[in-house]
C-alpha cells in the first residue's frame, strides 16, 4: 500500500504508467463518444414533449455531470497538496482546471442552445444556470490564479484554497433545481427511486456519461504528462525522452 503511494510520487513511474493507460483508454474513449453520439442522434425516438431538440441531452448532461465530478478531483488534489505537500497532487489540480472549464463551457453552451427551442430563450438567470456559470468562473479562476504567481509552490497553495472554498458551490448546483422554482427540469436519473427517463433514452445517456468520464481521465493524464515533463526538464529521464523524440 505505502509502496504504491511512494511510486505515485515518482514522476517517471507516473509518466510511464499513464502512457500505458492512455494507449488503450484513449481509443476506447473516442469509440464510446462516437458510438454514444450516433446512438443518441440517429437511433433514439424523439421526446414526446420536446421533439428532437432533446437529443442535446446526450452531450449536455454528461458534460455537466463530469464538470461537477471534475471539481471534486481538482479540490481533492488541492487538499492533498495542502495537507501532505504531494507534488503530484499539485500537478493533478493544475491539470484538472482547464478540462473542467471546457466541460462546464460545453454544458452551459449546449444548455443555452437547448433552451431556445424548449423554453423560448437562450438564457435565464435561474439558480441552476447561474451556479453553473459560477463553476465556470471558479475553474477559470484557478487557471488564471496559477498563472499569476511566479512562485509555483505559492500558486499551488492559493489555487488549492480557492478550489476548496469553491466547494460550497457544488451542493448548490446539485440542489438548485429542488430548492428554487426554475425553468430547468429536475434530474431524470435517480440513484434512489425510479428514474423518469425511458430505458431507450437512458442507455445511450449512460454510455455518454461513461464516455465523458473517460474523456476527463484521458485529458487529465495527458495534461499531467505535459506538466510533468516541464517540471522535470532538468532530470535525466526527461532528457533521454527529449533526445529520443529529437531523433524521431
Amino acid at each position, binding site marked *: 500500500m505505502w509502496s504504491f503511494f511512494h511510486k505515485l510520487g515518482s514522476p517517471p513511474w507516473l509518466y510511464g504508467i499513464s502512457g500505458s493507460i492512455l494507449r488503450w483508454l484513449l481509443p476506447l474513449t473516442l469509440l464510446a463518444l462516437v458510438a454514444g453520439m450516433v446512438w443518441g442522434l440517429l437511433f433514439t425516438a424523439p421526446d414526446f414533449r420536446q*421533439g428532437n431538440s432533446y437529443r442535446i441531452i446526450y452531450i449536455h448532461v454528461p458534460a455537466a455531470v463530469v464538470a461537477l465530478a471534475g471539481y471534486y478531483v481538482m479540490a481533492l488534489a488541492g487538499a492533498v497538496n495542502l495537507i501532505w505537500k504531494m507534488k503530484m497532487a499539485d500537478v493533478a489540480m493544475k491539470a484538472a482546471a482547464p478540462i473542467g472549464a471546457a466541460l462546464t463551457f460545453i454544458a452551459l453552451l449546449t444548455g443555452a442552445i437547448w433552451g431556445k427551442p424548449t423554453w423560448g430563450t437562450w438564457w435565464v438567470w435561474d439558480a441552476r444556470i447561474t451556479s453553473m456559470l459560477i463553476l465556470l468562473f471558479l475553474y477559470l479562476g484557478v487557471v488564471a490564479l496559477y498563472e499569476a504567481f511566479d512562485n509555483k509552490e505559492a500558486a499551488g497553495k492559493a489555487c488549492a484554497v480557492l478550489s476548496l472554498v469553491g466547494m460550497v458551490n457544488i451542493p448548490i448546483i446539485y440542489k438548485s433545481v429542488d430548492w428554487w422554482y426554475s425553468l430547468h427540469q429536475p434530474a431524470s436519473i435517480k440513484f434512489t427511486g425510479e428514474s423518469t427517463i425511458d430505458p431507450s433514452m437512458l442507455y445511450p445517456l449512460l454510455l455518454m456519461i461513461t464516455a465523458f468520464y473517460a474523456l476527463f481521465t484521458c485529458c487529465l493524464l495527458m495534461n499531467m504528462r505535459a506538466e510533468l515533463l516541464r517540471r522535470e526538464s532538468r532530470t535525466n529521464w526527461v532528457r533521454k525522452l527529449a533526445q529520443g523524440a529529437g531523433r524521431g
Partner: protein
Amino acid sequence: MYFQSLNELLHMDGHGAFVWTAYIITIAVIAVILVAPLRRQRGFLRQLAGELRRQQGDASSPGDN
C-alpha cells in the same frame, strides 16, 4: 434508424440547427482539449532536444547532467 432520409436527419423537424450546432461545438471543444496537451508535450520535447543538441555541440559548456 429513426430518420427516414438524410434531409430529415439534418432538419429534425425544425430542431436540426440547434441540435447540430450543439454537437459540432461540443466535438470542437473535445478536439481542442485532447490535442492541446499532446501538442504542448511534443513541442516541449522538441525544444528540449534542440537545447541538448546545442549544449553537446558546444564544447566550452558541457551539459550539467
